[in-house]
């Protein structure tokens, strides 16, 4: 296949092609406590949510992590059982409600024991010990097993659903198009290398929108990614494709390979040295491996002039694919109230990269970590001002261009889930 060019797109307008409204998008969902309450019940208590974790992080029976969700005030233990299966339980001793574990990661030998009165539970949630049992009343009638939480896995990513009886399976939630599109990406070779978390003073939709457009790269990231998206052939374009896949969406974005792999050793000798010894943001990913051989769902334009793909998995998971084997996955969660949110940004790469067996390679990895850390700080910064503008009442609607279609679609999907109807004009 011939690599695609931006100029091949002609007069394409994805918003029109997908039958979406072109009207401004109202931001009333971004600062309404009432909408937030409904969103808690209809979305965050009912939908499959990504934990931020992969199966390789809890490889052995008894390995666990804690999934604390502010909007639902829940704490869930996600643990690998003796049979190798991963399960979820509310982190709540059935005696007096004390939390069983307190650490974000850990490992237990076969059971969880409550620090308060010593009640214990197997890795399958079954109560195995009530201390001083003979002094209790009607022990047989007590509901003393841990309360289960639905947990399932897609491509090694661990999801949970707080609905005691989820209305769909995780496979159904992901949907056939996504299942197929990413079934040959080598996720199973990857693990988390870098993870940062910010507790931000902005609403969850503001945070969500901050990672589903490519429009801002040329401007907000002009220092971190200088001229990476500047194109000679279409000054108004920076995207090759968008696809709306049920509740989820995908976009693929131009990168100026000449700029990205330019010799920067004269004016950025450290960045240059780091990219020689390790993977960095500007690593020559499309030069290292011919894009025609890439996994089928990534860089579908099959071009070397490619920077990244975005995949938004509704509601809280945002992928940024950076090469045929590395990616960032963002976990975006609401906080306790409508104007708080929690952003966890994680960089994943093949575990073989972790076996950095030289100091130079380790140094290159650390450089990558700091540079991506600072780039994410740029992304986070815009959210505060936007929230203030919305809260002031001055800012009531957004004008979205065609290449911001993922935001328009995400707004529709959220309104549909919460209020059963999409936004104005659609």
């Amino acid at each position, binding site marked *: 296949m011939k690599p695609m060019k931006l100029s091949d797109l002609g007069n394409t307008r994805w918003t029109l092609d997908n039958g979406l409204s072109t009207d401004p998008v109202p931001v009333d969902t971004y600062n309404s406590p009432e909408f937030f309450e409904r969103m808690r019940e209809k979305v965050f208590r009912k939908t499959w949510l990504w934990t931020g974790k992969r199966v390789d992080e809890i490889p052995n029976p008894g390995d666990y992590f804690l999934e604390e969700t502010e909007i639902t005030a829940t704490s869930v233990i996600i643990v690998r059982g003796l049979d190798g299966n991963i399960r979820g339980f509310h982190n709540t001793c059935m005696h007096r409600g004390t939390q069983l574990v307190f650490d974000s990661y850990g490992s237990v030998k076969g059971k969880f024991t409550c620090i308060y009165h010593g009640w214990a539970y197997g890795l399958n949630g079954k109560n195995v010990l009530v201390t001083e049992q003979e002094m209790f009343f009607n022990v047989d009638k007590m509901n003393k097993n841990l309360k289960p939480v639905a*947990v399932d896995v897609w491509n090694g990513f661990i999801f949970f659903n707080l609905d005691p009886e989820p209305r769909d399976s995780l496979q159904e939630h992901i949907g056939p198009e996504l299942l197929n599109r990413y079934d040959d990406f080598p996720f199973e*070779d990857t693990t988390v290398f870098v*993870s940062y978390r910010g507790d931000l003073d902005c609403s969850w939709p503001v945070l969500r929108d901050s990672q589903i457009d490519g429009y801002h790269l040329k401007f907000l990231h002009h220092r971190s990614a200088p001229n990476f998206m500047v194109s000679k052939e279409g000054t108004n374009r920076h995207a090759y494709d968008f696809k709306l896949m049920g509740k989820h969406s995908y976009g693929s974005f131009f990168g100026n390979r000449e700029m990205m792999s330019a010799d920067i050793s004269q004016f950025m000798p450290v960045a240059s040295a780091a990219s020689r010894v390790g993977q960095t943001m500007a690593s020559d990913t499309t030069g290292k491996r011919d894009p025609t051989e890439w996994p089928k769902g990534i860089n579908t334009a099959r071009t070397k002039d490619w920077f990244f793909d975005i995949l938004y998995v509704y509601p809280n998971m945002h992928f940024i694919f950076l090469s045929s084997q590395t990616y960032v996955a963002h976990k975006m969660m609401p906080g306790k109230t409508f104007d708080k949110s929690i952003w966890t940004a994680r960089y994943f790469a093949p575990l073989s990269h972790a076996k950095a067996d030289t100091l130079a390679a380790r140094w290159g990895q650390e450089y990558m970590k700091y540079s991506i850390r600072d780039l994410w700080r740029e992304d986070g910064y815009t959210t505060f001002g936007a929230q203030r503008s919305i809260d002031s009442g001055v800012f009531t609607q957004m004008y979205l261009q065609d290449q911001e279609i993922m935001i328009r679609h995400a707004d529709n999907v959220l309104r549909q889930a919460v209020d059963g109807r999409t936004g104005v004009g659609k």
Partner: protein
Amino acid sequence: MNAAANLPASFSDLEEFVAWALPSETLRRQKREASTMEDIRRFYDAMVARLPGVLEHFKTAEARAGGPDQVDDQTKLLFTLMLAFADASLSIEVHKSPAVPDGIPGDMWKPEHETAGWKQKPPVRLFPKNPKASHK
């Protein structure tokens, strides 16, 4: 850092910058962001000049010691100094500023790898793709 530790003898000219070699990413970033551009520039210029030599030294030291984890304390200190240099270089080469212009405050953006929980993270083990393996 261990006050007794020095840099390898051939890098004694960098000794005046050893205060940058703080033991965590957060401390090093905070030092960078609290420094003036002049101080960062002095550190940067001194380190850039020695960069090829440092990488060469790493190669020799780990070959002699039998691996990157077994290198001598002087080399370890030089490595930490290099981490501070990597962070500080962003101020010179990217941001043209000690902190990140148009960025959220550094202390608000927390590295999970410095948390107590992360230290208890079990060692990673991959699960090769196998359609029969269910995680239900």
